[in-house]
């Protein structure tokens, strides 16, 4: 479809870190009435980066996006785009004066305009010829050749998404914002469109800030993710870093399934309901006597049959998700953990079992 267009290869992290900051939030807050929606948020995004704000609904991520687009005004703090202050320090720039594109959650296509007219909507400053050319380019890039004269009503979900993306990209904004871009598509189309959108955005080397509650989407598409909770950023980093060493319990439990195993440092080991671990098994082990919770993902735990005296818990549930089983085991101290098993069912609910930590990486922990 777009073979004639240059395709940028995925950028290396080091290179990305050297690029200039395109977009910056500095201590930004926004309240609705007494409710803080965004609370003292600071963040910077570099040119060409794909940055995702990830969090549960109501965490303030969409508000952050609206503040970036200029659709809402921050109560406090400064927003800078391309080095210029667009909000804060007593100034405010309207959306049309910001170099920002926005793809709306349900696309917000203009129902009274054709596909081509929708895409051309932000191009009123171009000459007619140039405009037609740009529209044609965008149609090609988004795989919509021949759709220009159609109305937007008859389009499928994926096609609407392509039009929305083409429309926001056509004026060549410095930053494009995606608001839950795939939430209106069915699951199968979602995976396909993720790849497609990533490809299109790479071609144009555009800086992206995306907002989603879908962790798989965030982890698979982004250069960096920021986890938001109650209007604050809990952690920012590359996907695998955030996933493997979450800074807070919230981040740990929001990303993937997480169990927390209580423990206490005694000498050079940690006493837990799963037996004694070496302190070196933990990331940055704390001093002796500290009580802590150790993050255990289902794949960090293994269940096995054992003689009764050796068992430390009882199977209380199991969840079949296709390739794997997740067993829910209630340990003898009452802690409930999820353990992953990739065989056919071997354990029955109610059966006594032994759970061991079987991680090949240092474990994250949180003070009690």
């Amino acid at each position, binding site marked *: 479809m777009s073979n004639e267009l240059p395709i940028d290869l995925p950028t290396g992290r080091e290179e990305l870190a050297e690029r200039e900051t395109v977009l910056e939030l500095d201590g930004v807050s926004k309240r609705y009435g007494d409710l803080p929606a965004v609370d003292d948020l600071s963040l910077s995004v570099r040119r060409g980066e794909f940055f995702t704000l990830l969090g549960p609904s109501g965490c303030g991520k969409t508000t952050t996006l609206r503040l970036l687009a200029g659709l*809402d005004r921050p109560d406090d703090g400064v927003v800078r785009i391309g080095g210029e202050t667009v909000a804060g320090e007593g100034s405010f720039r309207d959306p049309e004066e910001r170099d920002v594109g926005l793809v709306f959650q*349900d696309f917000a296509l203009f129902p009274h305009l054709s596909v081509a007219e929708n895409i051309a909507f932000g191009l009123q400053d171009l000459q007619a010829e140039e405009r037609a050319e740009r529209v044609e380019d965008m149609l090609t890039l988004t795989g919509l050749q021949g759709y220009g004269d159609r109305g937007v009503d008859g389009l499928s979900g994926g096609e609407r998404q392509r039009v929305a993306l083409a429309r926001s990209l056509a004026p060549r904004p410095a930053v494009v914002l995606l608001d839950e871009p795939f939430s209106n598509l069915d699951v199968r189309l979602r995976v396909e469109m993720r790849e497609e959108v990533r490809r299109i955005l790479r071609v144009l080397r555009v800086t992206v800030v995306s907002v989603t509650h879908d962790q798989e989407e965030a982890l698979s598409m982004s250069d960096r993710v920021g986890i938001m909770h109650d209007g604050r950023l809990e952690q920012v980093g590359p996907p695998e870093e955030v996933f493997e060493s979450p800074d807070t319990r919230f981040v740990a439990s929001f990303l993937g399934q997480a169990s927390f195993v209580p423990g206490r440092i005694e000498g050079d080991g940690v006493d837990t309901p799963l037996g004694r671990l070496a302190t070196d098994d933990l990331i940055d082990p704390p001093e002796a006597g500290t009580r802590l919770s150790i993050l255990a993902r289902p794949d960090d735990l293994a269940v096995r049959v054992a003689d009764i005296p050796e068992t430390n818990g009882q199977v209380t549930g199991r969840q079949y998700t296709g390739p794997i089983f997740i067993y829910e085991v209630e340990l003898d101290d009452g802690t409930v953990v999820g353990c992953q098993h990739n065989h056919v069912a071997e354990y029955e609910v109610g059966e006594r079992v032994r759970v061991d930590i079987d991680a090949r990486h240092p474990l994250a922990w949180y003070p009690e």
Partner: protein
Amino acid sequence: MASGDGLGALVGRGDGHDGTARSPAGLTLVGALVAAAVLFPATWLVLRVVGIPLDRTIDLLTSPTMAEVLANSVALVAVVTLASALVGVPLAFLTARTDLPGRRVVTVLVALPLVVPSYIGAFAFVSAFGPRGEFADALAPLGVESIPSIYGLLGTALVLTLFTYPYVFLTTRAALLGFDARLVEAARTLNHSRWGAFRRVTLPQIAPGIAAGSLLVALYTLSDFGTPAIMGLDVFTRVIYVEYNAFGRDFAALLSLQLLAVTAVILAIESRLSRDASAYGGSGRRSGSRMRLGAWTFPALAYVCVIALLGLVLPIGILLVWLQRGSPAFAGGGFEFSWVVGWHSVYVSVLAAGVATLGAVPVAYLAARYRSTLTTLIDRATYVGFAFPGVVLGLALVYFGSAYAPALYQTIPLLVFAYVVRFLPQSVGSIRSSVLQVDPKLSEAARTLGRTPTEAFRSVTLPLIAPGVIAGAALVFLTTMKELPATLLLRPTGFDTLVTYIWRVQDAGYYGQAAVPALALVAISGLSMLVIVGREPNDVE
């Protein structure tokens, strides 16, 4: 239905996607009868005109009066429609899309002039601004010798605009509330200023709403009898009535038919305008942020106040002045007001509401549940009342009654029939939208639980559509209370209603006598507003 296969075949298939959508023959027959009854006066009028000798028809059609009447009517409709849009659209935008303080109150306030029947507004304005009126009297000591005449085109246009712009206000406001404000945000992120976004996104999408309201204004203006009659503007309705009373019946019939033709032209223009625009049902889930008025807040509020003052405070204030001055100077002349008159109004209005509801239920149910060419035709036929000016309808039935059914002429049944023809669309519309909101699966569920179609209708559908049925009946009741021209033409001799009473006393110049019934009518109209507002989804914010 098992019976009546012959008629069932006539009815044709339903809308394809479910094979059961074939309209029941009995119901279809009833609907067709209702439609035929409603169409009857129009066909009668046509036959009456065809009966006029050709050379006389040509004489009348080419008479200077005819040309003048047409010109006056078209000018009045154009001015009132344009002025209503200019007043109504900004008000709708202010209340629906900006941070205007007190916008809830303002919404009610600027919609309220609709409750003042325009002929009462016309009395009030004539009384206030006419020669030796309240204002002329008040201004005389200040050295103001004369104020511009309230009679004629400008006065009529002013009064009609003040009491009909709420149609444009309400439909535009509904369009703005249903409009997905994120589209404006999308336009803003695509480098459009506020005004650019309004012009290229908002306006094209609320245009059908503006057009719908303007159509109502145009139809109302064209069919209104009281206002031009009081303010002395020779438009169709006034001349038809005058000619009828002067026994120029051929001319009256011809004018009536021409008035229907002009109405048809307006309807055709509207349907062309709204043809491509019908499907923009915006999701309107999130209203987006409101526009800040800033320094414009005060001028906006001042504008609202001026409109409310002219459309609401002034007419009601004048009525209250009349009420207070109910002294001998204003009373008398054998026009003693009696509440029997009020009872007469209620009596005919209840009858009209009941009959209209009985006729509307089958039509609305057919149109909503069994869509086919025939059911759509039946549904549309009932809308003829919208296009039928009361004076024309009255006249058609007068011709019919006096020539062929003297037993019916000037009787309550014929009067009620006229009301039903005129106001059936309100009932059909209200019931149809209720039926559309009821999931057809519910009556299917009742069928699987052993109910016959009729039982299913009675036990499931009817209770669910009851609010719509009642609202439709209430609307018919309330508009019948206010109806003037058909009542004047068709009422039994000596049978006065609130409206005809007001008409007679104002005609004789005893304004003081009109205060009580006029205030009663305003209150009744206020109730009809409540019904309309109650039917609107709760989307004020």
